[in-house]
């Protein structure tokens, strides 16, 4: 199957949930920004349906690892494989198409388009994938409902609270039924209660749809929603023995 083609809904429930070959893996990643090494030989793998927390001190290379895994940043050395495909061997256009069809993103700030309503924001990736407006907005409305923010559908991001906006962002990431969700400090801008609820809804939705989640966080209470953790220290990623 061409991974750039959006997967059929029937295939989505068949994610192997932690068994079989890794869905996404990286080996020996190196990345340097100027004179600062961000990654120095990082390895990583995640299986379908798995939720993996990427933890580590500030500046350890967590976000750079996520960006390399998602094909947003190209590593200086090392490889990233998604379903057997090496990301760096793909053209920019193919990588972009893959990100749209198979990956979802939740960041800490500023991911919603301010000029669009929340419903239009959630529908946007579906529209970009070629779904008709009516169908895309119907699915978007279902996702807002599922994230318990149906009432913000007609509001613009500037008119809703941080917690509501983040739930809309989670809905937008999950609506196209991605195979991997990349979440970079998804609760970083939220208070405890909103952060907890956002994590409950994000992980429940990911488990229902069979999506794997790469969860970058420095908060241990957020990491507790994962199946296992990987610790990044000085640009290297290690899986603690007790978590194996």
């Amino acid at each position, binding site marked *: 199957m061409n991974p750039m083609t959006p997967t059929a809904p029937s295939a989505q429930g068949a994610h192997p949930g932690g068994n079989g070959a890794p869905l996404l893996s990286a080996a020996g990643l190196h990345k340097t920004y100027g004179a600062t090494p961000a990654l120095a030989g990082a390895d990583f793998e995640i299986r379908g349906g798995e939720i993996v927390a990427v933890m580590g001190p500030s500046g350890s290379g967590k976000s750079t690892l996520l960006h390399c895994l998602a094909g947003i940043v190209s590593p200086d050395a090392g490889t990233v494989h998604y379903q057997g495909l090496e990301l760096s061997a793909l053209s920019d256009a193919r990588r972009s198409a893959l990100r749209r069809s198979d990956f979802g993103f939740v960041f800490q700030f500023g991911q919603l388009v301010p000029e669009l309503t929340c419903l239009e924001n959630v529908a946007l990736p579906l529209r970009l994938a070629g779904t008709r407006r009516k169908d895309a907005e119907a699915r978007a409305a279902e996702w807002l409902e599922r994230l318990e923010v149906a009432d913000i559908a007609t509001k613009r991001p500037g008119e809703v609270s941080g917690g509501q906006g983040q739930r809309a962002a989670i809905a937008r990431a999950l609506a196209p039924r991605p195979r991997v969700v990349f979440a970079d400090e998804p609760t970083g801008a939220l208070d405890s209660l909103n952060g907890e609820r956002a994590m409950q809804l994000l992980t429940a939705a990911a488990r229902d749809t069979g999506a794997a989640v790469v969860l970058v966080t420095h908060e241990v209470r957020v990491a507790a*929603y994962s199946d296992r953790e990987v610790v990044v220290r000085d640009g290297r990623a290690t899986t*603690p023995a007790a978590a194996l």
Partner: protein
Amino acid sequence: MTIGHTLLGLLESGPRHGYDLKRAFDERFGHDRPLHYGQVYATMARLLKNGMVEVEGIEAGEGPDRKRYAITDAGITDVEQWLAQPEKPEPYLQSALYTKVVVALLTGRSAQHILDTQRSEHLRLMRELTRRKAGGDLSDQLICDHALFHLEADMRWLELTAARIDQLAEELTR
């Protein structure tokens, strides 16, 4: 049983008398609660009986015990197992962990590994509590939150210690 393992750990760097062990223990770990001589001799007698230490020599002189103890291979294995076993996560476990970190550094083992193992054990319990919260009523949620916040404080200590491990190693070797 921390005192016995700690004394064994201190013996790894070389044979010592009971009074010397007490002094080394108090200097490293006994600021608030120094060991009684009786505790040291009772512990050493038990370790001797269990084959964890052996008497390398007895010196003539004053005092109740002039035995010079050396750690056995079984004793080294016992220290190894104690260091590898994460502490049961509960509030205020830092002193036990601190002791393990220091013994690891003193004996040339990986203190970072101990902290990583403990982090995993804490996260394992935090995952359990998080799952219990998701299926529980408000009482369950509040009870779990209380435990989660305490465990989170332990985790901050683990992070902070991990960040200062080189500095601590340097201080211990001064």
